[in-house]
């Protein structure tokens, strides 16, 4: 057994302190230690984007980070995206309205990639949206409705 390390971090506004193994992936930490299972794991090596979360406001792949690297950081996962319980973030509402999700497995990753990006690109073109999402895979939708959802959300935001 390797030594464990103490980390403290904020996730969705809540502070946590945990003893963790140095090799524990951030994605596994969120899913198994904190039971935040909205962050999905589709490939485990940075290809699919399903595990995307925000670390200090920046979209990162949580399967490519160790939990200890998030020590002292502020994290946001899909569970913390909506402004309140029973409410949806404009992106979430748009994804529903525009039929931008089917199985929904890829959706949290798309939303978390988009959240900071849309704030910086309030009037995106189709082209820009596609470029921003080129690292997120979806096997169900064919992507066209995802582009529409982003434009819809841009109007609401």
């Amino acid at each position, binding site marked *: 057994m390797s030594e464990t390390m103490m980390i403290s971090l904020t996730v969705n506004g809540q502070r946590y302190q945990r003893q963790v193994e140095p090799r524990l992936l951030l994605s596994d930490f969120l*899913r*198994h230690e904190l*039971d*935040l*299972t*909205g*962050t*999905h*794991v*589709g*490939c*485990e*090596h940075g*290809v*699919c984007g*399903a595990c995307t979360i925000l670390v200090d406001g920046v979209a990162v792949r949580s399967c490519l980070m160790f939990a200890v690297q998030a020590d002292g950081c502020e994290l946001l*996962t*899909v*569970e913390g*995206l*909506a402004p309140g319980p029973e409410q*949806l973030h404009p992106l*979430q*509402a748009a*994804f*529903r*309205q525009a*039929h931008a*999700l*089917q*199985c*929904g*497995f*890829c*959706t*949290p990753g798309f*939303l978390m990639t988009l959240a900071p990006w849309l704030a910086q690109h309030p009037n995106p073109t189709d082209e820009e949206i*596609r*470029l921003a*999402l*080129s*690292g*997120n*895979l*979806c*096997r*169900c*939708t*064919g*992507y*066209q*409705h*995802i*582009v529409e959802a982003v434009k819809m959300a841009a109007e609401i935001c």
Partner: protein
Amino acid sequence: MNDAVKDAVKNRQPASLIGQRITKLDAPEKAAGKTRYVHDIHLPGQLHAAILRSAHVHAVIKRIDVSRARALPGVHAVLTAADIPGEHTHGIVIPDWPSLIGVGERVRYVGDALAIVAAETREQATAALDLIEVALEPQPVIADPVQARQIDSPSLHENGNLLKHIKVRKGDMAQGFAEADLILERTFHTATTDHAFLEPECSIAQPTADGRLYLYVGSQIPYADRNQVARALGWPDERVRVVGQLMGGGFGGKEDIAGQIHAALLAQATGRPVKLLYDRHESLIAHPKRHATQIRVKMGARRDGRLTAVQTELYGDAGAYASLSDKVMTRATTHSAGPYETPHARADCYAMYTNNPPSGAFRGFGVTQSAFAVESMIDELAEQLGIDPVELRRRNALRVGSVTNTGQLLHESVGLLECIDRVDSEMRRRAGNDPFRARPTPGQEHRVRAWGFAAAYKNTGLGGGAPDRAQAEVELYEDGALEARVSSAELGQGLVTVLQMIVAEEFQAPLDQVRVLVMDTDLTPDGGPTTASRQTFVTGNAVLQAARTLREGLVRVLAERFDAPPSQIRFVEGLALVNGHTAPLGEVAAIMKSEGHSPRALVEYWAPATQPLGAGGDMHFAYSFAAQAAEIEVNTRTGEVQVLTLIAATDVGKVLNPLGLLGQVEGGVMMGLGNALTEHFILEQGVPFSDRLARYRIPNITQTPEIVVLHVEHPASTGPYGAKGVGEIVSIPTTPAITNAITHATGVRITRLPVDQEEIALRGEGRGR
């Protein structure tokens, strides 16, 4: 009563939900990250499982020693074939797939399991695998289906390597080719491909206090899982309960057993809940794939373009075990003359066992492969005859009154010509009258654009004489809620939303008053497999019948209670209207109960009977049809292909939810695009190179063309509101539409999938440069 109800009552013409854009029932939860997929479930005391898989492609096991693994701290069980209490093999069609390979038995592919471990942590379970000692004797490898049929090839199964020889016979081939003015013959190859659903497989088995076993899993066929797991445990079916979970995609890849039996065996042995999660590597290695094929087509036509004869010979790589190969390759074979009428047809297919991963169901179910071959041929035929490729298809297209190559007279619901015409006019509206000519991109002379066209058809339902039925139950509760229950699977395709619409429609109730329970073998009756584009049709019909049966029951009781003729009783906005009384549905449920009736209806729906292949008559009760056109741009320096526009028309009988249908079409088109351009599950002598997602390229968002979706409605009289299947047909014409466009742009004929883009650059002489 609110105004809407008053209006509805006054007009007696309630609004129909059918054909309206309805957002997905489960979308808010999914968007909020609240949906629990199997891997998100954590049971108290749960152990973690790991599987020792064969590192060899083909070998005989001499010895397995698990004693050191058993002694490792944290390990609760290490099981081998000798520990299986019940049946040792599983399989949906033929049970030839060993759950564990025992000593003296044969490993037939790299995914074969030799031992399974349950431990306190995943790390411990994995560490235990390293301590298992295996001695085996390597055997010669059969890497492709043509090799498998050679006489000197080793036999992989008791009855040899031929899983099935499938035959289609119509007319007289000698006469057919004698009548032809032009005969073409070509051979095509398609690659092994993977579903790459985004959620890898996971099973959790939980022993219960009363001696049963609950199985949490994402499965396309919950009742088949229950049966196969129970057999392995040596139990009656009812002792196992499959609690199906929402799936992160399936596409045919979650029909076979993948981990369910292993998790159940370990739970039975330890008395603890056991979670078995595949990582992407294991998912890619282990589960069944789309069949690689070799397809030879010989086609004869008269000068006017009418087909006189189509002869095909197909080899399908079934891989190590049968899975659904028999059915998939049958569909590839029966559809191998395309959606065209030909007086003389003959097809021979050899589904062969090899040492590759098993092949099974994958959206398109074999028709994807044969459509590529036949649509490429049709295009070349058109070119050589000097006939417009769309016109050539029109002249031969199946229509009402046509007889298919299996001898089925089509008597209704054949919208192929309309699909062809709609796509054609949209294409010409955009591209002018010569869409198939190569055009250099203005200002970028090394880029060339052109259009390509393809058509297809695909059966709805199991067909071929298989009984195709679904049970469904609809119940009305005293709080006014309506609930539909059926075991059919929600993979993301939107089945629950369609079922919700059907119940709401029949009771004229608001959508949010209807809930749908699926995939639980204790709580929901058997809806049959989610395969063959059958759910909207078969399960839709079952739910429709259950809803109508329940409604009739309500009407009878209300008629008696209020002394009104049944014809005067109406349902509007969640209310029953009788003789000027209005009663909310919840109250009606209470009335039913007080009169001693149960406000519930369980039905078993049987789809129209079909005939086995070779018997003639209706091999399938319905077909869906499609035409697509693709505009592509080739970079002639690099060979890189970009699909710019894709126009898709699909005859689905009747559009139930246009929003859901759009999603199916667009997702299907992208899968066809991947199949054409990037997807290749690469195997080298049975060893997968594509063992991680970075080595298996599914299309990303930058590859999406503009997708223009056109709906065509030629109702099927036996479908729910006229609807037919849609899940697969939308994906089938995409690949040949793209490859035909590449040929038009570059002059290079594509005979192998996926397209070798470098080869296009090398061979793409002349045109447009």
